[in-house]
């Protein structure tokens, strides 16, 4: 909530300065008429753009629940509604904000949240500055991840753009720079850099997963009746950047993204002795995350591939939940078969530990080894009805259950600690979206 207020204030301050500037530029003779002058109001209105989108999907899986209680009858708890305000205050100053309401199983529940809100000073094409809550540049598609019609398929490749961990990459609150450097006949280079903080949502699968792990450790340390009394997440910082090289070879672009950050966890329980209960007792540390990207477009054909490694250290109550790099990569091909109909194919791979691809570490803990990987083979159709409507339908076959799937597939029997996960499973996703 605090962040929403900060964001709104940021927008109001910038918009207020716009109005002030506008008034200053108004000739004295007409200033007196400004109050109810419709031309003035019209001019202001012409500087402000209001856009939005909404989407509704249906998700059906067999074998495991996927993002929601998606087995048997499937789920319609799968939508996004966004309202976007953009204003060119001056030729160089732009302000904007987007309010987003989304529902994906237990996450979001259509609560309206501030997705982004920032002021953008475009000093030149070489350098601009953004201040506020800004979509985090990561890979080819992260910044547009919340608008269905901007994603080639219903979901972005989950290895790199995992929905369960979206809090880690959706947006930063801080300051960023960006620009484009022409390289003459060699093409051009776009760059972005940022430093700031992340905002975690209490209902995210990531946080739920850490709460579950913390409770499990607490029960091991203090007995089976122990309960969590509080769980505080506080991001210290995030910093990173992205560069995209647009080659002179038509349609080829290559990119690299980097990020690192540190988040403290303060886990409270009546069982924890007071002497050891002050200060953070857990942390999520992203030592570094690299994403290497390539995209090639030729006529009706698009091929995109990305490779990533995320080296992290996740500790709760003195125990390591994850230590070492995960590995992520995918290939996605899209072919426009007819004017508005395209076929999309996806091969998407994630390893929880890149040096333990057989999941032996999970096996040692008494869990299923296939919690150590997830390989998704997907095929889907996208129909762009017109500039406003998009329909998508796709099928995915999956081997493995990595990426927090234990949260929505809890142990089937009381006392068991092994999640009810099946190694081979599949899902169907259908979505319709509208934008204006």
């Amino acid at each position, binding site marked *: 909530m605090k962040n929403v207020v900060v964001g709104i204030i940021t927008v109001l301050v910038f918009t207020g300065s716009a109005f002030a500037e506008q008034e200053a530029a108004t000739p004295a003779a007409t200033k007196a008429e400004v109050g109810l002058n419709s031309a003035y109001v019209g001019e202001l209105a012409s500087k402000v753009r209001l856009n939005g989108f909404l989407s509704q999907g249906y998700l059906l899986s067999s074998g495991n629940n996927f993002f929601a209680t998606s087995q048997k009858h499937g789920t319609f708890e799968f939508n996004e509604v966004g309202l*976007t305000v953009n204003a060119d205050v001056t030729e160089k100053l*732009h302000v904007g*904000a987007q309010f987003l309401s989304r529902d994906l199983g237990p996450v979001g529940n259509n609560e309206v949240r501030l997705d*982004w809100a920032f002021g*953008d000073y475009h000093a030149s*094409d070489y350098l601009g500055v953004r201040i506020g809550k800004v979509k985090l540049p990561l890979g080819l598609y992260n910044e*547009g991840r*919340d*608008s269905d019609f*901007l994603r080639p398929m219903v979901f972005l490749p989950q290895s790199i753009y995992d929905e369960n961990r979206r809090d880690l990459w959706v947006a930063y609150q801080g300051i960023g720079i960006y620009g484009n450097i022409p390289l003459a006949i060699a093409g051009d280079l776009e760059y972005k850099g940022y430093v700031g903080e992340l905002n975690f949502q209490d209902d995210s699968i990531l946080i739920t997963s850490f709460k579950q792990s913390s409770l499990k450790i607490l029960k091991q340390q203090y007995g089976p009746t122990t309960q969590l009394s509080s769980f505080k997440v506080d991001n210290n910082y995030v910093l990173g950047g992205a560069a995209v090289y647009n080659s002179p070879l038509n349609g080829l672009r290559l990119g690299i993204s980097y990020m690192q950050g540190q988040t403290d966890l303060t886990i409270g329980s009546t069982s924890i002795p007071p002497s050891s209960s002050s200060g953070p007792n857990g942390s999520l540390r992203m030592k570094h995350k690299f994403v290497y990207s390539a995209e090639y477009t030729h006529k009706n054909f698009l091929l995109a591939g990305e490779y990533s490694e995320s080296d992290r250290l996740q500790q709760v109550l003195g125990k390591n939940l994850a230590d070492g790099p995960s590995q992520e990569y995918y290939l996605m091909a899209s072919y426009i078969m007819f004017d508005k109909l395209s076929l999309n194919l996806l091969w998407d791979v994630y390893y929880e530990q890149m040096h333990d691809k057989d999941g032996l570490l999970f096996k040692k803990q008494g869990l299923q080894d296939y919690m150590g990987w997830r390989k998704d083979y997907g095929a889907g159709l996208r129909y762009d009805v017109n500039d406003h409507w998009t329909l998508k339908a796709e099928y995915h076959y999956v081997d493995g259950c990595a990426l927090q799937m234990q949260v929505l597939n809890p142990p089937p029997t009381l006392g068991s600690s092994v999640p009810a996960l099946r190694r081979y499973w599949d899902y169907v996703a259908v979505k319709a979206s509208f934008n204006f």
Partner: protein
Amino acid sequence: MKKVTVILMVAVALFSSAICNAAEYLVVVNSGNPLTQISKGELRNIYLGKKTTWDGGQKIELAVLSGGKAHEEFCREVVNKNPSQFSNFWKTALFTGTGTPPKSLVGDGAMLGFVKNNPDAIGYISGNTAPSGVKILSVD
């Protein structure tokens, strides 16, 4: 003889394709704009929001046609995207706050009116339209 025939056929095909492309769209600017020609790379950078000012420092006023053959050809030839990819490119900018899409105009008449009335405007029209009051840029 066979080789000569093949070469001639290829040459004719390339030539006719060039004529065809040249006839699909014309890039136009305000008649007060000092430019007489523009490279395809520069035009692409303008239409992808990477170059936002003219050399004199004025902000470039950008417009696209809402559809049609000229728009399709312009997207493919200049921006290297099909029309829906080009549209999505600007929607991404719009819905992430990182850019304002070009004005979308219906028909050559609206485009010519826009370019005539805006000294810093650039646009394109169908190749079979005879423009007046604007300057046609040759595209390298």
